[in-house]
């Protein structure tokens, strides 16, 4: 106790990489969409995302009576922005766009913006079904966020740092997924839940006519849906530095390994979505609080003992 940790020099990418980041994420999202369309059995999967985007771009925006346009629009726009900001600390290869000393907390802070965003979108249309969707997402957030926080903090605990590059370095000998499997599984579940992605897609479920997105059309829907996909890609990509050793791997350069691992995580999430039915929120809340939180705390304790024993 009492000695200051040695703070490594920031190893961020040059400033222009910030401009490259949206392009990269966009491409990754596109690839995910193609994969999803292929899984859904579409024959023209390669063109499907482009066609859908074009359709939404020229589509008319729907207006509802006495809607709250300000909050609705802001909510939609916040989703992709939050995903991009969260991705700033994501090591693309060895280095992130911004190597923050509190990277894990930054990521967490950006992704909870989705709470506000989805609720605002649901509220904004002044439609009962939209509002139900927004409320469902808040309930889902209360269920996934605490186990999620314990899961990512366990990774930070294992590396004794909140800096993502340090967390990656700490996994040189052994990937964190090996010593913290529970945290990894919980992280994957919460990654799907934060992008309200199947089986956690109740906030935009068909039983409430699309829920939070019920009244969205045209550009509004494109921004909302695009932001949701971006969130999913960023959350999946973040599993790589947290649990899967970042860019570590033989033969290929670091960035290629990050891409391969991210694709693997995304493929798993896509498969889960097509494999499992939507989870009812009240069931999931109970499961999260009674089972997942104690499990993740026990996982954190186990990792803490390993860290203390090794020190």
């Amino acid at each position, binding site marked *: *106790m009492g000695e200051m940790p040695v703070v490594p020099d920031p190893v961020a990418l040059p400033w222009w990489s910030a401009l490259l980041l949206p392009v990269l994420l966009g491409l990754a999202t596109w690839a995910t969409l193609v994969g999803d369309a292929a899984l859904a059995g579409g024959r023209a999967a390669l063109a499907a995302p482009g066609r859908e985007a074009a359709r939404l771009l020229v589509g008319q925006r729907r207006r509802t009576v006495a809607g*709250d346009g300000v909050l609705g629009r802001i909510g939609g726009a916040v989703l992709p922005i939050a995903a991009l900001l969260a991705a700033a600390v994501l090591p693309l290869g060895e280095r992130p766009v911004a190597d923050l000393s509190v990277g894990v*907390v930054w990521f967490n802070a950006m992704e*909870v913006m989705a*709470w*506000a965003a989805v609720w605002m979108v649901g509220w904004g249309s002044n439609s009962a079904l939209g509002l139900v969707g927004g409320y469902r997402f808040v309930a889902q957030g209360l269920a996934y966020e605490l186990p999620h926080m314990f899961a990512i903090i366990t990774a930070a605990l294992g590396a004794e740092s909140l800096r993502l590059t340090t967390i990656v370095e700490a996994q040189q000998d052994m990937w964190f997924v090996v010593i913290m499997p529970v945290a990894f599984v919980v992280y994957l579940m919460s990654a799907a839940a934060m992008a309200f992605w199947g089986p956690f897609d109740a906030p935009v479920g068909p039983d409430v006519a699309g829920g939070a997105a019920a009244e969205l059309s045209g550009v509004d829907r494109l921004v909302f849906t695009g932001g949701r996909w971006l969130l999913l890609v960023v959350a999946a990509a973040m599993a790589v530095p947290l649990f899967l050793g970042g860019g570590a791997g033989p033969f290929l350069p670091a960035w290629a390994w990050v891409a391969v691992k991210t694709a693997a995580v995304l493929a798993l999430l896509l498969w889960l979505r097509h494999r499992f039915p939507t989870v009812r929120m009240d069931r999931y809340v109970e499961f999260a609080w009674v089972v997942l939180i104690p499990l993740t705390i026990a996982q954190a304790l186990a990792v803490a003992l390993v860290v203390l024993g090794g020190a």
Partner: protein
Amino acid sequence: MDVVLFWVLAAAALVFGYLVFRLDSMAQVTFALLASFLAVAALVLLLGLGYLGVVTALMMVIEMVIMAVFMIMFMMNPAGLMPMTMVHNKVGSAAIAIGTFVVLAAGILLVDWPTREGEPPPDPTFALGEALMGGQMLTMMTLGVGLFATIVATVVLSTDRGRYGDER
């Protein structure tokens, strides 16, 4: 650059704070308050306190969303879509708010601030944790988890089953 950013954020914090009392929708008021808090969080970041700033943003977003849900849930007009105002005693509350602001701002300007001695620590987050908890870190961590476990247990014990009563 930092100075410009400071003034922009300070102005944003004030304007959004003012909007809290001007807007007539509960939802908009909540998120105006959130925007004001986020500007303050960015100001904390500007001070070089990375952890505090980011955690403030993280906590405030969650807190404000939950607050919006509860406030609207318990409002007299359903869903809070009817125009409303956050202020009951308009003149009195304005006087109190402006008075507090003037006193605090005057304090900032009038206090004889000490000059900085030494350098900021290499990791302010670590230094802050040390300063707050010192040798009691382990006690505090255990207490924290204990408290949290109590909260979870209480919620689990006190919730009734499902929306349709005892279904299981």
